[in-house]
């Protein structure tokens, strides 16, 4: 497949990334090469093969419904780039 500008900007939107022009040129070429290489999986016959998303078949890892103390709020907010009134903060979202 060929990677066009439209696909690159779609992937930028999905990933919330904005590539500089030189990055865009490089990644367009790279992605095309890599995806064409990946496409060789099409050769494999996988009919009736189930999808494996874990290395093992273990199931059911639970915890009991018990409450433990939460973290100190100052610790939670310690790495916040901007903190206001005990909350994380960003420029306004409404109306964007």
């Amino acid at each position, binding site marked *: 497949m060929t990677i066009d500008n439209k696909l690159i900007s779609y992937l930028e939107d999905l990933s919330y990334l904005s590539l500089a022009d030189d990055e865009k040129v490089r990644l367009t070429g790279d992605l095309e090469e890599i995806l064409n290489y990946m496409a060789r999986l099409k050769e494999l016959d996988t009919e009736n093969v189930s999808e494996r998303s874990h290395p093992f078949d273990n199931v059911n890892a639970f915890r009991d419904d018990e*409450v433990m103390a939460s973290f100190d709020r100052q610790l939670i907010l310690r790495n916040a780039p901007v903190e206001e009134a005990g909350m994380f903060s960003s420029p306004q979202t409404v109306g964007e």
Partner: protein
Amino acid sequence: MKWETVVGLEVHAELSTKSKIFCACTTEFGGEPNSHVCPVCSGMPGTLPKLNRRVVEYAVRTGLALGGKITVNSKFDRKNYFYPDLPKAYQVSQLYAPICRDAGMEIEVNGNKKVIGIREIHMEEDAGKLIHDARNNRTQMDFNRCGVPLIEIVSEPDFRSGEEVLAYLEKLRETLLYLGVCDCKMQEGSLRADVNLSVRREGEELGTRTEMKNLNSFKAIGRAIEYETERQIKILEWGGKVTQETRRWDDDKGESFGMRSKENAQDYRYFPEPDLLPLYIDDEWLQRIKDSIPELAHGKRERYQRDFGISEKEALVLTEHKNISDLFEAVSAKSGEPLEAAHLLTGEIMYLMNNANITPEFLAVDAGKLSVLINLVISGKINRNAYKETLAAVFDADVDPDEYIAKQGLKMVSDTNIVGDAVKAVLAENTEALADYRSGKEKAFGFLVGQVMKKLGGTGNPELVRKALKDSLSV
């Protein structure tokens, strides 16, 4: 040809577990911002989820109660999108193998019964809360609600009117309350519904639908359905096309608004959540969950009639809301007088609630105090007048019945001397009525009883009063 409204509902119910779905933080509503938060639910780098077993059990319980098929091999998936209320930038949810499929619920509108199909029930985590500070042009993030467990109950597009939607929601709410899986407080957001709506000419193919969000009360849902139906019909009648989009309901303005197009063109890139193991619900576990399902409304209705001899009509009123049936069961257990308790709740308490404009979910009366009152009236310590008066005081001001009765002097007067004195005085003061009675006017007897009661401050033993009056008159 007539227009027809077609509605499907997505109901989100917060499960009333103690701790969150993937960490041990409390699910308690409110609290200082970010005070119910840990590294896991705030999505700090390197943290991992660990599933709360009770979330699965509550979801299965709901699925079973709604007649659904439980998915034996279920699993979680990640739904990826960026939004500030979602700290990991993905929501752990279920797409490929939801916990329950093919459920349904019967509703009744204007005497017509109809089954609404429920396509699936799935488990997911709730998002945080955003506070918009318009003055400083900022949005602040509070993650207390992040990770509170949710089930999403997705109906088929089976509704044809707002009434049907409301009937379904009422019944669903009661069912969830009876199941004990959700406290269903819409004002706290623990029960929320998104409305998918389209219109068509009867008999035609389904039209283009819109999804409405931010519906915070049943009333808002009713209004929003009405508004959206009219909006779509107007567009189509003018030859336009309905755009498939998400719309936000503004209850103050009574209008909905299309959300920006970016939120409408979403590609969530769902894939199996690698940090959680798949679920396997074996027969034994399923049976244990089945056994844990509490008695639901119809079961209670039958039992009340069978075991207590309560009338069908009263049983219906008692079981319509879980809060009422809980109160009934508590009062009848404490007082040992189920019939009297049933009369009380379906009669006087309903009357007081109506007067005070209180809906069943907000009813808060002390069951112990009601039991005391019932025992007082049945054992003849107070009469019905005093019973009603004290009841009102308990209902309004949560007074202690014994203290109130003592203070107001409401104890029933059964002393024959006192009653006899009162009768004598009344006969002396009401010669006209006495004459009427003597001349055969039976009505005058009732008047005289009333006068004696009045003299006794309403607390006279009614039987004793009648007897004493009869005796005096027959002399």
